[in-house]
């Protein structure tokens, strides 16, 4: 019998706010332990939470970016459990009235567009971090109270590759939207997996198994690559799988039972009495919506459709948003988007990297790039001369026409001058002439090269070819 996997992901993302969720402490990674703390995020007796409005905005913005609905009534709840990294021994989260729900993410997968539905994205607080030493343990509460968004997917994912691709697409969206920096190494993104298997075609789901403790997207993929065959094997052997939580061991590459359903926590959720329900009005939502940016996939499709760019060029402009924006700024005035893309990707980007210059510091004006392209198109200069002109433009900010004039780089289209160069080339290269006449057409290129060299690159290459051909055939 053939089996299929059913996978849902719970992705935790730290929001990019200046301060923490309930207090004014800095939301900052890497500070000395317990320096970004105050009575509120330490849960000292008598403190109260005050919701960070920017975190609420980023949550709603995520809702827009993930095609979610944004309810007009959301509230916070307490999730009760004891753990040393939890200052209050309850986490403030959103239980039954999340800030946003019922959306989807579209992404490129296996040559097509895949869709994973989003159940909800709710706002909560991060906890501290435990450290274990030889004889004792410590907790760093710098992270405690950092705003955390939990994005829960529907079980629409069917493979480890799809899970991996979804997570990367989600990450791109969140970075694009300014929601989170999604720096995995700083723990800004964490992910839990729910996975079950069932015979292909069967409707009802198998026993749901949760896997925790993956610290990278590839960890998620590896965990699923281990867990799915494990479950299939168990079922194939006739064993019944039971709902449980398993821990991924990244070193040995296996999952192990952490707790069974019977041992599951009873979190005793109830409404957080210290916070008022959140009821956004039209103006508030409109202001948030105005911050919604174009998503990577939509942008890519638009670049392909509007400018007839090849996929690889479009992808370059997705990966490097600033470069893509620069391209769009230039291309608006151009009839030849592909030429603009080539110049931006092949020349400008290389020069920026080479000289470690930021796009904003480029000396020439975007219009001057168009001027350069026009010079090539009207055959005033050859493409190779254009490279030289571009290098000059980049270095000095001078206009390309000015550079061409000042340096006398305009193409030679005067036939008599080219004929003279052609005669010289034929006279100096009897072997190439003989080769060509013996039928080696490629030998013409060598002669053409000589003409270009003699003209210091200014001869019109097509004209040079025509004249050489005529003379050799004569």
């Amino acid at each position, binding site marked *: 019998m053939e089996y299929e996997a059913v996978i849902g992901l719970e992705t935790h993302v730290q929001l990019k706010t200046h301060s923490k969720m309930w207090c004014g402490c800095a939301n900052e990674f890497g500070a000395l332990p317990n320096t970004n703390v105050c009575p509120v995020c330490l849960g*000292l007796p008598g403190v109260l939470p005050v919701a960070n409005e920017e975190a609420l905005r980023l949550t709603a913005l995520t809702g827009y970016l993930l095609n979610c609905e944004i309810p007009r009534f959301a509230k916070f709840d307490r999730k009760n459990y004891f753990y040393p990294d939890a200052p209050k021994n309850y986490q403030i989260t959103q239980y039954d009235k999340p800030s946003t729900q019922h959306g989807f993410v579209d992404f490129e997968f296996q040559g097509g567009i895949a869709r994973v539905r989003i159940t909800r994205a709710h706002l909560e607080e991060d906890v501290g971090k435990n450290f274990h030493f030889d004889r004792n343990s410590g907790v760093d509460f710098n992270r405690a109270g950092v705003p955390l968004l939990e994005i829960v997917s529907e079980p629409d994912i069917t493979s480890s590759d799809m899970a991996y691709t979804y997570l990367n697409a989600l990450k791109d969206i969140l970075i694009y939207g300014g929601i989170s920096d999604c720096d995995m190494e700083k723990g800004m993104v964490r992910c839990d997996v729910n996975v079950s298997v069932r015979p292909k075609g069967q409707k009802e789901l198998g026993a749901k198994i949760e896997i925790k403790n993956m610290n990278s997207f590839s960890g998620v993929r590896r965990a699923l690559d281990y867990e799915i065959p494990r479950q299939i094997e168990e079922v194939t052997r006739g064993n019944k799988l039971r709902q449980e939580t398993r821990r991924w061991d990244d070193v040995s590459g296996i999952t192990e039972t952490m707790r069974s359903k019977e041992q599951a926590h*009873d979190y005793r959720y109830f409404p957080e009495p210290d916070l008022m329900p959140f009821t956004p009005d039209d103006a508030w939502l409109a202001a948030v919506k105005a911050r919604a940016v174009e998503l990577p996939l939509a942008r890519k499709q638009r670049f392909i459709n509007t400018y007839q760019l090849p996929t690889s060029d479009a992808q370059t402009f997705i990966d490097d948003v600033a470069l893509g924006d620069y391209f769009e700024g230039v291309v608006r005035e151009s009839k030849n988007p592909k030429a603009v893309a080539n110049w931006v990707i092949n020349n400008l980007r290389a020069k920026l990297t080479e000289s470690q210059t930021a796009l904003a510091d480029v000396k020439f004006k975007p219009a001057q790039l168009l001027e350069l392209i026009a010079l090539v198109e009207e055959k005033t200069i050859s493409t190779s001369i254009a490279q030289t002109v571009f290098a000059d433009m980049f270095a000095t900010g001078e206009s390309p026409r000015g550079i061409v004039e000042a340096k006398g780089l305009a193409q030679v289209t005067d036939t008599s001058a080219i004929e003279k160069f052609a005669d010289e080339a034929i006279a100096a290269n009897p072997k190439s002439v003989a080769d060509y006449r013996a039928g080696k057409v490629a030998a013409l290129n060598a002669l053409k090269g000589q003409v270009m060299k003699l003209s210091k690159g200014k001869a019109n290459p097509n004209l040079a070819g025509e004249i050489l051909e005529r003379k050799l055939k004569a």
Partner: protein
Amino acid sequence: MLNELTIAEAARRVRAGETSATDVLRACIDHVKKVDPQVKAFLSYDEADALVQANAIDHQVAARENLERPLLGVPIGIKDVLSVKGHHLNCASKILGNYVAPFDATVIQKLRDAGAIVFGRLNMDEFAMGSSTENSAFFTTRNPWDLERIPGGSSGGSAAAVAADECIATLGSDTGGSIRQPAALCGCVGLKPTYGRVSRYGLVAFASSLDQIGPFTKDIRDAAILLGVISGHDALDSTSIPQVAPDYTKALDGNIKGLKIGLPREYMVGGLDPEVKAAVSAAVENLQKQGAEVVEISLPHTDYAVAVYYIIATAEASANLARFDGIRYGLREDGADPIELYSKTRGAGFGAEVKRRIILGTYVLSSGYYDAFYLRAQKVRTLIRQDFLKAFEQVDAIVTPTTPTAAFKAGEKSDDPLQMYLSDIFTISCNLAGICGLSLPCGFTKAPKLPIGLQLLGKPFGEETILKIAHAYEQATGWHKEKPPIGRI
């Protein structure tokens, strides 16, 4: 004796230079030293710290700076549930150990801004859970009118300190009657503001949706002054109402003609002591004589209030008290792993009543029981609130006894939690409905002579109306001038 002064009079004398803040404070401290070994209202007090504060005020007065501050040079005692920077904060529990608060509660900051001397830690039932102070982990406070008897609770220390003139006024907290009930039993004025009127920032939470901080004073004018100082919106408390507090003293004009006062028929029931009943009836007659109109009203869901209260309050408490775990501060009893550390710390640190309520609250929130208990209780709570809002369409205020009986003897109910819970039967609904209420003296039992409290309940943010009525009654009767025998021999 300066310690016997009201806020209004003490501040007036300090302002006028007739006396110094230091002298007022010294009079209080001397009296504390004299009577508190018997009354046991204070868990502790920092004499040096208080004298530094008083000295600072005296310097400001000498320089004629900020003389209009309403609490100028007035020592205010603080219930041990409010965070005062640099002071111990124990909530009358062992679990906080040697914890010293690193910040001032908003009300404490407001007291300081108003020129008050923040003075002492007043005894209470552990974590404000109780009605007698017998649940204090340290000792039981005694009723200044009869040392055999309890002062009420949970703010028993705050009430006893005012009644025994150990302080000019005090702050307490009221979750189900913890200000009004001890005020009634000790014969002083206690006011629970409308939920959201006073910031809870720095109040150690018992039941967050019910808790309010409020004043204990010697008369109604002082309650109006102190309430005015501590009221107002606070950016640190999301549940505080963004409204400017009025000058409550302006309502004290003695004119209650035409005001409508409701008598809930559900409150005049069995279990009500005849002397209490008689005193309340006499009070109602007095109000009628002064021109108020008295009508009978109904609050039909009254019977459910105690049950609803003990579900909601304990549920919230079970989460609020989870932070006392021995990890970051307070008592720690080490264990081999975190769970053992928690169990041993909390086992040793919490008293029986606190444990009882944590267990009850944990139970009512448990999976499978939530709908039957917590959710249902919230629905009934809404009905109770609607009862009051409906009644307030007809009347300006509601009058009831504050407690069914006068102060009971220490030990009398401490073995029977249910009997203890029922002593709050008249005060609990007010917190569930989120309205305001106060208690003021309305007479005494004959033998022994024990104070009886009259409760006035007002609309949400209707503190001015109940203060106006209470003031008219107080001025017409003068019960507040009666003093307990303690310290007077």
